[in-house]
């Protein structure tokens, strides 16, 4: 059986693995690092303009081959498995959480606190923003103070966003542009954004994706990337609770078992596949799975719920100027004294909703040619704002990932089943949250002759995380604040699984910051000249 040895073995090849490996290689240039990723390596930047064009013209997958057909989960919200992970096709949004997210218990008597101070996290937010290349503008709220400016000036507001901000701020709610990992100037060897309007397949590299970091790593002699390699089990050392090996299989040689050995293992496979692998690795000494003496591996899966509205207003909006750049208000990250607990962000984007071409007039007549165009123009005189709030929900212990014996991959491994469930306090305040949003949407629609075209509630929790939550108490958490598992001193979990709760805005920057902090702890295990 082929055996691969390295100093640090990272399982999973997404954004967390990329930033962790790069920082480790900088802190300890002498150590060897292997990243194992089950999916394909899609490093063909030169083809992305063509993929983008096929996606626009034919609705084809702009990331061909970014999945594994039989490696899926009930309840998962992304099929992407490739080197770079979901951050290959993310929108690049880099919002920070706020201190409230880390202090739910002590500030509001809800759920739990994080085992890390805000000031400590803020330091690593700055580093994450530098490494990803974030463009942004300061928040108008003093509570959002930063110790460093954004690395790049904010993306210019389009005419559409200027109009929408003017409208939205008539409510008295301050908005700012959303910070994004998109270059507003050439940065870190990547190009300036040229507003292709397809950020999920950025054809120029102006939006950060982890493949750029992996390409840089591959130029180093002590770095190896093993793609198309699925780790199926972690194996403990004889007589001690340390991980000795990762057992894997290469997808092109399914009959051949592989083994990876290292003094340090890091799970960086996301909220789904990290807890899944720990559960799959059950053995006689840990019959409920590795790192699971608390019974919390796969538990407290979190995310945030969301409510949306399309609001038509008197504004000249030209759909398509830069649809994926939007506005955010952080006003509702704080909970007013004496009010109920309702925390959320508030986002606004340009939209064509309600103003799209249609085949039939209101009376059912078929519209063709000039008649269709005239109808379309008549309905497009006003503009539409897409409004969304991600709101803070807290998971119950039963919000879980479990092994589903009824669904197995080609190797017979049970696949995960994911079921999000809010805790009792979250459920109890749901009517008040809905009422709050109804009033908020009405408040927005009061200006510029606004009309709410539609409202909707998300039917899943977005930006999912958790499953290996961090904490100080080994009975109530899976890892410490560095991602080191309580049960196995050489096994770390980094990235989204360690988040106890998912806040009320996008989480990528937060778990990237935490991963950079973990890198320093992992590096301490090796001599500086090691």
């Amino acid at each position: 059986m082929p055996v691969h040895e390295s100093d640090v073995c990272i399982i999973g090849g997404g954004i967390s693995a990329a930033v962790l490996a790069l920082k480790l290689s900088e802190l300890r240039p002498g150590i060897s690092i292997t990243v194992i990723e089950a999916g394909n390596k899609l490093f063909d930047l030169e083809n992305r303009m063509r993929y983008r064009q096929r996606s626009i013209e034919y609705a084809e997958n702009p990331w061909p081959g970014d999945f594994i057909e039989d490696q899926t989960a009930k309840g998962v919200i992304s099929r992407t498995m490739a080197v770079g992970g979901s951050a290959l096709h993310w929108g690049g949004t880099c919002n920070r959480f706020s201190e409230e997210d880390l202090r739910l218990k002590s500030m509001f008597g809800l759920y739990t606190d994080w085992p890390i101070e805000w000031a400590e996290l803020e330091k690593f937010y700055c580093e994450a923003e530098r490494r990803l290349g974030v463009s942004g503008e300061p928040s108008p709220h003093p509570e959002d103070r930063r110790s460093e400016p954004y690395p790049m000036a904010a993306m210019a507001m389009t005419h559409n966003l200027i109009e929408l901000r003017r409208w939205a701020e008539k409510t008295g709610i301050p908005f700012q542009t959303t910070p994004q990992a998109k270059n507003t100037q050439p940065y870190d060897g990547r190009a300036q954004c040229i507003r292709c309007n397809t950020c999920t397949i950025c054809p120029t590299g102006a939006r950060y994706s982890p493949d750029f970091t992996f390409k840089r790593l591959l130029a180093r002699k002590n770095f190896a990337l093993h793609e198309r390699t699925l780790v199926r089990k972690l194996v403990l050392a004889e007589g001690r609770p340390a991980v000795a090996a990762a057992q894997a299989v290469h997808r092109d040689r399914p009959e051949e078992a592989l083994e990876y050995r290292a003094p340090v293992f890091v799970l960086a496979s996301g909220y789904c596949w990290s807890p899944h692998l720990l559960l799959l690795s059950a053995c006689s000494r840990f019959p409920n799975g590795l790192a699971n003496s608390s019974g919390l591996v796969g538990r407290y899966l979190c995310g945030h719920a969301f409510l949306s509205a399309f609001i038509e207003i008197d504004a000249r909006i030209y759909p398509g100027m830069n649809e994926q750049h939007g506005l955010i208000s952080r006003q509702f990250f704080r909970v007013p004294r004496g009010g109920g607990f309702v925390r959320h962000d508030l986002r606004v984007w340009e939209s064509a909703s309600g103003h799209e071409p249609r085949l039939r007039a209101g009376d059912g007549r078929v519209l063709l040619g000039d008649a269709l165009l005239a109808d379309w123009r008549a309905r497009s005189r006003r503009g539409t704002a897409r409004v969304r709030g991600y709101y803070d929900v807290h998971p119950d212990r039963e919000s879980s990932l479990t092994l589903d014996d009824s669904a197995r991959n080609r190797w017979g491994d049970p696949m995960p089943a994911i079921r999000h469930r809010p805790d009792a306090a979250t459920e109890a305040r749901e009517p008040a949250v809905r009422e709050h949003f109804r009033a908020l949407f009405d408040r927005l629609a009061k200006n510029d002759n606004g009309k709410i075209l539609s409202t909707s509630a998300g039917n899943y929790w977005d930006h999912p995380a958790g499953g290996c939550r961090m904490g100080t108490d080994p009975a109530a958490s899976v890892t410490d604040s560095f991602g080191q598992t309580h049960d196995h001193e050489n096994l770390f979990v980094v990235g989204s699984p360690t988040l106890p709760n998912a806040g009320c805005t996008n989480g990528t920057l937060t778990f990237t910051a935490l991963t950079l902090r973990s890198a320093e702890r992992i590096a301490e295990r090796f001599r500086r000249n090691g």
Partner: protein
Amino acid sequence: MQRRTLLSWMAALGIGRAQEPFPGGQAANLRALARVVLPSAVDAASAADGFAQWVRGYRAGAEMDHGYGFTRLRTKPALPVASYAKQLAALGPEPSAEAVAAALEEAKVAELPRTPDGRHVASDLMAWYFRSSDANDLCYRAAIGRDKCRALAGSENPPKELR
């Protein structure tokens, strides 16, 4: 999977099947249809040619996007090019708006498809054009260039007006 099963799946999806020539003998009828279903400001002949090129570039069996929040893996179905030809022949060289509307009713096309979906050549030609960046510009009489890559500088201004 057995080879026979694989081949039957591929046949059903149209994978590996040579794309039938389009518009073949129906080029004139396709242009005539474009004159009826597209705005008069559009060059119907070149739009018809553009649609024909789009049909020829279509790849049955290609992966479709399985983006965030939408996890089912799907592939592009085959385009009914033979049906297109029959529909064009049935509409003839000088189709009236009424005849096109009747054909769409018969094909039970209720809405403009997001992308051409093979139900009728008229609605697919319309979807191909009216969902395009060029049509968006025509509607707003502005050079928005939704699907183009454009500089950030100047984007704070409304797009240039088109006359």
